[in-house]
């Protein structure tokens, strides 16, 4: 009896001192196939790179990070099932998905389980539903679209604009905000074109844009469709300047569209071409590991893991229940946590405040034209 008690006490002492510290388990649900495969693959690779780096330096509070990846197939229904399965395993934090439609249907599940969800979705409505467990890794449309509309009106001097958007939560959310802002500024929307996710043929849509003869075209589609429409715009000889937000001028789009991407402009919250040393370092490490240049989704996945690290170290303990409360209102400085790449502040809704960039594609490369500072 005495020896049993002694063994028990010894085991307790060992586990609390961390000699056998359990790994911190994260769950990731991402678009690893389907229309969002580019998004999900970049996101996953960013996560894996961050975890590899953190574990190589001893982990978080002496504990290693572990992640399980599940494929949402870019389908909200599948995403919901995968998130439920991931939550049943009681992860410390849930990462993903990247598609707004999938975030919309999975966020209530994570909130109900009391698990923080750090995701890649950008639809404005996601963080406006009072969910206290949901956090962004990039700007929401309510932050980015006013900047886009202002650029179209002030810098492009466009009096008439064609707006092409993808008919899903991401596209609709962006379209609603940008049209409202354009009209408020006095630019007239002369074509408002809805397209389908996964659409291959954009000849008719581009035909409509040509017929409307706008001063500028705002393109808000997912990555692959962005590449296809850029090719079609070039094929039909549309010369109006093109403006996008994040996806249009992403690395994968540039690679797929080739010459057709040249001249496209866009606002990006994150870009691997940013004139920031820490981001350049990330880009080099990522490219070395995966043999391709990441897009903003690679950055998002990477930052999600460093958000977990910084928040946990701020708490000084691994506590999934207190995680969201700690992250609300938290400012993480790149000087203290280089993995966060740029100073960032999270508000009470889970939205972020961070500097952003206006870029143009020049000879197949993103070139940063302006750096927009943090709002607060």
């Amino acid at each position, binding site marked *: 009896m005495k020896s049993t008690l002694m063994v028990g006490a010894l085991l307790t002492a060992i586990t609390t001192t961390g000699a056998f510290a359990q790994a911190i388990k994260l769950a990731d649900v991402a678009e690893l196939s389907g229309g969002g*495969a580019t998004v999900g693959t970049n996101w996953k690779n960013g996560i894996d790179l961050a975890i590899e780096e953190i574990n190589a330096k001893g982990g978080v509070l002496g504990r290693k990070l572990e992640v399980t990846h599940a494929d949402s197939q870019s389908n909200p229904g599948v995403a919901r099932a995968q998130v439920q399965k991931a939550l049943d395993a009681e992860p410390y934090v849930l990462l993903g998905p990247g598609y707004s439609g999938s975030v919309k249907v999975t966020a209530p599940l994570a909130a109900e389980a009391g698990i923080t969800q750090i995701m890649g979705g950008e639809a404005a409505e996601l963080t406006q539903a009072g969910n206290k467990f949901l956090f962004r890794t990039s700007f929401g449309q309510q932050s980015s679209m006013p900047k886009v509309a202002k650029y179209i009106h002030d810098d492009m001097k466009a009096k008439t604009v064609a707006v092409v958007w993808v008919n899903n939560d991401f596209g609709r959310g962006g379209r609603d905000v940008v049209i409202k802002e354009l009209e408020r500024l006095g630019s007239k929307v002369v074509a408002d074109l*809805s397209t389908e996710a996964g659409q291959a*043929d954009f000849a*008719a849509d581009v035909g409509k844009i040509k017929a409307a003869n706008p001063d500028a075209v705002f393109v808000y589609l997912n990555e692959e469709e962005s590449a296809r429409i850029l090719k079609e715009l070039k094929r039909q000889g549309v010369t109006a300047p093109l403006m996008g937000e994040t996806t249009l001028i992403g690395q994968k789009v540039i*690679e797929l569209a080739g010459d057709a991407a040249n001249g496209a402009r866009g606002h990006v919250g994150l870009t691997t071409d940013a004139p920031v040393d820490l981001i350049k370092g990330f880009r080099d490490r990522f490219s070395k590991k995966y043999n391709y240049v990441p897009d903003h989704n690679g950055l998002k996945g990477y930052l999600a893991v460093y958000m977990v690290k910084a928040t946990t170290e701020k708490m000084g303990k691994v506590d999934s229940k207190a995680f969201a409360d700690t992250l609300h209102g938290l400012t993480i400085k790149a000087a203290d946590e280089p993995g966060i790449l740029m100073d960032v502040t999270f508000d009470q809704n889970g939205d972020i405040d961070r500097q952003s960039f206006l870029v143009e594609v020049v000879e197949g490369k993103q070139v940063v034209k302006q750096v927009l500072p943090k709002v607060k």
Partner: protein
Amino acid sequence: MSNLFDLLVAGLATGAIYALVAVGFTLLWQTSQTINFAQGEFVMLPAFLMLAAMHAGAPFWFAIILGILLSMTLLGLAFKMLLVDPMMRHGVLPLAIATMALAIGIKEAVKQFFSAEASSFPSIVPTGDISILGHAVSLQSIGVLVVAILAVFGLTTLLNRTSLGHQMQAAAQNPTVARIIGVPVERMILLTFLINAFLVALASLLITPIYLAKFSSGEVLGQAAFIAAIVGGFNQVRGAIAGGVLIGVLDNLAAAYVSTQYRAAVPMIFLIVVILFRPQGLLGRAEERTV
């Protein structure tokens, strides 16, 4: 008016590719009662074979030749020997279901061994415009249209003006009588499969630069070509050509003048209307069946 011209040209270019794929549907049906539901995936795969060759360091022209040869071997010879011949004796429906399974298999294999992401694909036609009747028309649209027309013209010439083509038609129309008069029916059927494989490889080469190379890109194409073949007439090559062009143009005009949201429904509605009023298709031949 300018917009209508652009839409017609783009629709004709897309329709010409649908026609190439639809012709394959009708050829296989006529010679071996095979409804190949993997036809869309047959168009998707050659592009990846060519990309794989280029990744291995082959120049583009060599990758094209290799891709076409591999396509004819895998999607023509192997498809017939390993799937169609063993399944044929069980009837049309089991064979059709087997081709559905094949479609899933090809799609998943490409996703697994190549990538789930889209890849760019070089075009055999240079970019740029030429002026036609005062309208700027892209070289790519013209190139796709010309190559597809040449392929269809070559095929119809082969079928209608050569001894080989006559033998193929005889084998398709009445294999028993064809055998009696000395036509090597089995060889003719194999030739049909090889021609189909060549046509899908050509379609792949033409459409992938526009649609990008992706494991799932065969779904839309296969469905459109199937509708085109039924609309035109499943037992007539000329019907498949007409159906393909018609669906391509109709799809573009519907997206522009009806609704982009309902564009996918328009060919379907058209298909239902055709089946209701002319079940054999617009140019098809009514077939009698003993019951």
